[in-house]
């Protein structure tokens, strides 16, 4: 059974990755999961300087999902390299650094620094965050801004570059093409959908930040649709995420076009979710006589003339 997949020039021993922000810096899950058994570990989103994040409450449960407004709290690129990376390097597993900035310059500076050290095997740019220079606008929703920031980062890194797309857009396929044209080696989708919940007793938002990102099984149908849209639009590999709870969900994403998958909210429901997803994928392969996991990528059978 061949489980290995390639994300650009980065080879993974299997397609199960962790979704940024749901697996800490890896060490939090080390007592539940053999980290070396994973395809890759994507760490919590990093910024050049440490961030405090949003005030609590930061989390609300919603029907078959959850909203979070962590506010990108993180220890910053330097502390990550010094305090967290050495632990991760003990394991034979690719480490992908998810990162972001408030300006193009911050993106570039973080990418440069992260490309400079041993033990980081790939970069994932989170472009779902607000662009300070452009007011409320988000890097991931305006194609021109997306193109600018991805191109700028591409120039300063030789590492495999994954662009993580925002699903809060009219045309996700367009955004993926923009990322591809700007030099991305892969795209990752979907990030969380913008959502909100109100406490009707107090009349206040349930999140201190008012709005937050919706994740979990509730959003899976949207993730599957977007991966399928993107699969037909670009030639670079796709990392699929959004509500993956078990191996069957992962297979669904791969049939839609994902080369690999990222497990997010499921880690909170069960800390062994990543390895459970992996063994579910193997079960499916055995049952269906699949020898090479790559062979099912985009394997959806469909016929329609108008698409």
């Amino acid at each position: 059974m061949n489980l290995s997949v390639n994300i650009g020039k980065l080879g993974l021993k299997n397609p199960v990755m962790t979704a940024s922000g749901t697996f800490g810096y890896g060490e939090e899950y080390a007592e539940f999961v053999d980290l070396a058994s994973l395809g890759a570990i994507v760490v919590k989103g990093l910024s050049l300087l440490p961030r405090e994040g949003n005030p609590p409450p930061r989390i609300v449960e919603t029907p078959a999902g959850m909203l979070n407004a962590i506010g990108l709290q993180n220890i910053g690129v330097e502390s990550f390299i010094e305090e967290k990376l050495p632990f991760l390097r003990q394991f034979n597993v690719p480490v992908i650094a998810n990162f972001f900035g408030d300006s193009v310059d911050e993106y570039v500076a973080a990418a440069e620094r992260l490309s400079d050290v041993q033990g980081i095997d790939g970069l994932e740019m989170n472009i779902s965050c607000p662009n300070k220079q452009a007011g409320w606008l988000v890097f991931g929703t305006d194609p021109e801004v997306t193109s600018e920031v991805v191109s700028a980062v591409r120039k300063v890194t030789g590492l495999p570059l994954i662009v993580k797309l925002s699903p809060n857009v009219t045309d996700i396929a367009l955004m993926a093409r923009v990322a591809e044209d700007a030099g991305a080696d892969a795209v990752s989708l979907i990030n969380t959908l913008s959502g909100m919940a109100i406490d009707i007793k107090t009349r206040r938002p349930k999140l201190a930040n008012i709005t937050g990102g919706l994740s979990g099984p509730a959003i899976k149908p949207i993730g599957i649709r977007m991966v399928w849209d993107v699969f037909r639009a670009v030639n670079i590999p796709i990392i699929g995420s959004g509500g993956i709870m078990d191996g069957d969900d992962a297979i669904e994403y791969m049939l839609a076009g994902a080369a690999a998958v990222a497990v997010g909210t499921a880690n909170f429901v069960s800390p062994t979710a990543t390895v459970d997803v992996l063994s579910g994928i193997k079960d499916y392969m055995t049952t269906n006589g699949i020898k090479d996991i790559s062979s099912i990528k985009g394997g959806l059978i469909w016929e329609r003339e108008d698409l």
Partner: protein
Amino acid sequence: MQPHVRPVPGQFYLLRASETLDPLLRRPFSILMWDDTHLEFLIRLKGRGTHLLRNMRVGDRIDVLGPLGNGYPDPLKDETPILVAGGVGIASVFPLLHAGTRLFYGAMNSAELYLLDDIKKLTGNIFICTDDGSKGFKGNAVERLIESLDDLAVAKPTIYACGPEGMIAALLKFLSERGIPGYISFEERMACGIGACLGCVIKTVQGYKRVCKEGPVFNVREIVC
């Protein structure tokens, strides 16, 4: 049940009764009592998660993650621990009860005072209060503590407390005014329970800290109100 890692007082577990995708997240509960093969919790019915737990029957499987968090530190040799609990917060401090421990225990009314018989078996030093006066002192546990503390004339009192927000706020104010040391167990919404999601933070003098990892018990000196 398999033998389990033994908890320490003040730690908690994440429980999940649901087998479907809604409700999705686990629910945190303080460990009340335990032995080699049993864990006991005191659970107040609140919303959907606790109602599903209530509807479980003997023989049903429950998904248990824990023990989690730090738990209460031991008092120093010369310190006298005094426990303060509000309502279901008693679950958190209950494992700290020893023969003679002083406990200030308050609730809205007598129906929300739990485990009184078990408590009385362990100590006679109980100060019961209810907001409506339906049992014990009329008023809250912190008022009662403030009134009685000097009379108790204990050496180096150190507070161990868990209770609702209002009670904790009053307690923090009193302790800081009087410079009395203490440890309080806090509550915050949780997803992972193991320090990964950064969902459960509270403000401390060193910035946000995770209730599930650096807590749920915090030194009162750390807390920023």
